[in-house]
């Protein structure tokens, strides 16, 4: 623990990551108390103050119906983070289990499972999620479903490669010799040795899920208004460039800050847990 804290603080980039993510998570969790205009998360209009450049009390300016952008960004973070957590909570167990089974059992099981994985991997992620979102109704739940469908194969591939090298190790052989069952070897012997890589990837991916979800809503295939969403805020504001620049720049930077933070944090975890790239 002490070593971990030392690594985090010593490296300025890791420290930046910790600070950024703390701010983002804190802002999202306590948006009700921090946001100057909590009611602006919904369908509110305030035409007296529409399209205002950044000035007090509107830190990031206001949108075309007079809602405070800073407040909306905080609430958008809340939804993005929720989406990221739910997607990974489903995609990781599914992907990891398939990867473990395919890697350890081998033979036909491996062939079939890995070809199915290849199918998902050979449709560009965004295109797969877009098609699913378009065919379903664009809601938050369907957004989670679409992103999950494109996310699990990456964990399958990661864990599959790890399992294939782990199963040659002495400890697996020892477990086999004393007659341990396959589930025991897979989940109690091999899985714990894959955890550092999985945790590192999950940290990085929290950022990338936010990135993909915002891309979907940028194209109009994500969370629908009036729910605040970083991607659709950028898309709406882009029509009013360059005059109302704050409409696009601040939501865009908000995405950048969150993903950048998770990237730095993931790199730091990689150092702490000693995971190879």
């Amino acid at each position: 623990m002490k070593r971990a804290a030392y690594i985090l603080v010593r490296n300025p980039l890791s420290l930046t990551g910790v600070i950024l993510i703390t701010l983002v998570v804190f802002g999202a969790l306590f948006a009700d108390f921090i946001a100057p205009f909590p009611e602006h998360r919904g369908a509110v209009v305030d035409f007296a103050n529409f399209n205002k450049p950044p000035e007090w009390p509107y830190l990031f300016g206001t949108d075309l119906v007079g809602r405070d952008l800073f407040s909306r960004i905080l609430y958008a973070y809340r939804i993005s983070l929720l989406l990221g957590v739910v997607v990974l909570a489903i995609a990781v167990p599914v992907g990891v289990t398939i990867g473990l089974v395919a890697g350890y059992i081998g033979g036909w099981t491996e062939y079939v499972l890995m070809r199915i994985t290849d199918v998902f991997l050979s449709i560009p992620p965004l295109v797969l999620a877009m098609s699913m979102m378009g065919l379903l109704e664009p809601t938050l739940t369907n957004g989670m479903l679409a992103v999950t469908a494109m996310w699990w194969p990456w964990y399958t591939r990661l864990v599959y490669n790890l399992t294939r090298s782990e199963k040659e190790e002495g400890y697996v052989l020892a477990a086999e010799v004393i007659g341990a069952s396959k589930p025991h070897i897979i989940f109690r012997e091999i899985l714990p040795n894959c955890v550092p890589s999985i945790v590192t990837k999950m940290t990085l991916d929290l950022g990338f899920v936010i990135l993909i979800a915002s891309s979907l809503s940028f194209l109009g295939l994500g969370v629908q208004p009036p729910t605040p969403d970083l991607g659709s805020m950028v898309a709406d504001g882009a029509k009013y460039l360059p005059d109302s620049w704050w409409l696009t720049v601040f939501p865009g930077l908000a995405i950048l800050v969150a993903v950048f933070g998770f990237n730095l944090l993931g790199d730091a975890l990689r150092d702490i847990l000693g995971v190879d790239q």
Partner: protein
Amino acid sequence: MPPVVRLLAKRLGTSLIVLVGVSMLIFTIARVIPGDPARIALGPNATAEQVEALRERLHLDEALPIQYGYFLRDLSRGDLGISLYTNRPVTADIAQFLPATLELIVVAGLMMILIGLPLGVIAARYRGSWADHAVRIFTLLGVSAPSFVWAVILMLIFAFYLPLFPIAGRIADSYAIASVTGFLTIDTLIAGNLAAFGNAAWHIVLPAFALSLSGIGQAARLTRSNMVETYDKPFIEMARSYGFPERRIARRFAFRPSLIPSLTIIGLDFAAMLGNAFLVEAVFAWPGLSRYGVAVILRKDLNAIVGTVLIISAMFLLVNIIVDLLIAFINPRIRYSQRAS
């Protein structure tokens, strides 16, 4: 049979299986959705008879495997059906919009190689210096924002505030260029119109750069970490003790072995670019597949969605086969062993 041919045959075979899988997957997703695609296509004013006639024509009342059979039969004739959105064959629509997207991706891919690899080499050679840190921050920023955010920021800075580049489009309207390849930068050269070529090239810089930023980041990071690893190998030590200049060591001894994983990443990034091109095209009003793709998705135009996804996946698989062959060409050891999928 030469090993390279055997590798090619094997990769083509696997890709074909995967492509059949892709078609089944996207076909199933497109057919199990709620709502009647015929009703959506015809709109609320169509009569029940009209809807029924369209359902009949699209074989929507048959069982799913039979529908898939019809689909495969048409596909083998190069027919992806009629788009319910444009009322034209899906293949014609794709043929019209795809070249612009491909051109954007090819230029972005070139930028990725020509900027990403040198950045990685510099970072590795001056490991721990300010240059290394600067490259690290640049590459992290590159992967940390979706390409539409970079597109908006680049547009704001280099098209609005500093009017160096055009804001939107592929070429100025005043140029009329006959389409040969569909790549404007090539067609203008075929036409011998240098002014038009300059104009087209000028238009493509910003969108391609926005598209390539995350790829540049990944290529640079990977090249750096591979080269750093190679620098620790004994043969580098030996080259140094022979007194080879550092530049030559970097280029000949450290860079070459690092090139192979970088090539693999470039192949994978191509997939990401095919998706991200949708975002960049939307910002720069680039007349490619993006607008068509989003329009057909929003209208639940089944044939067009299935066709577009299938073509994009086929291109992705093709690029990866080419990358594999390139790697086999560079590294003779791989010709004889199978690369892990």
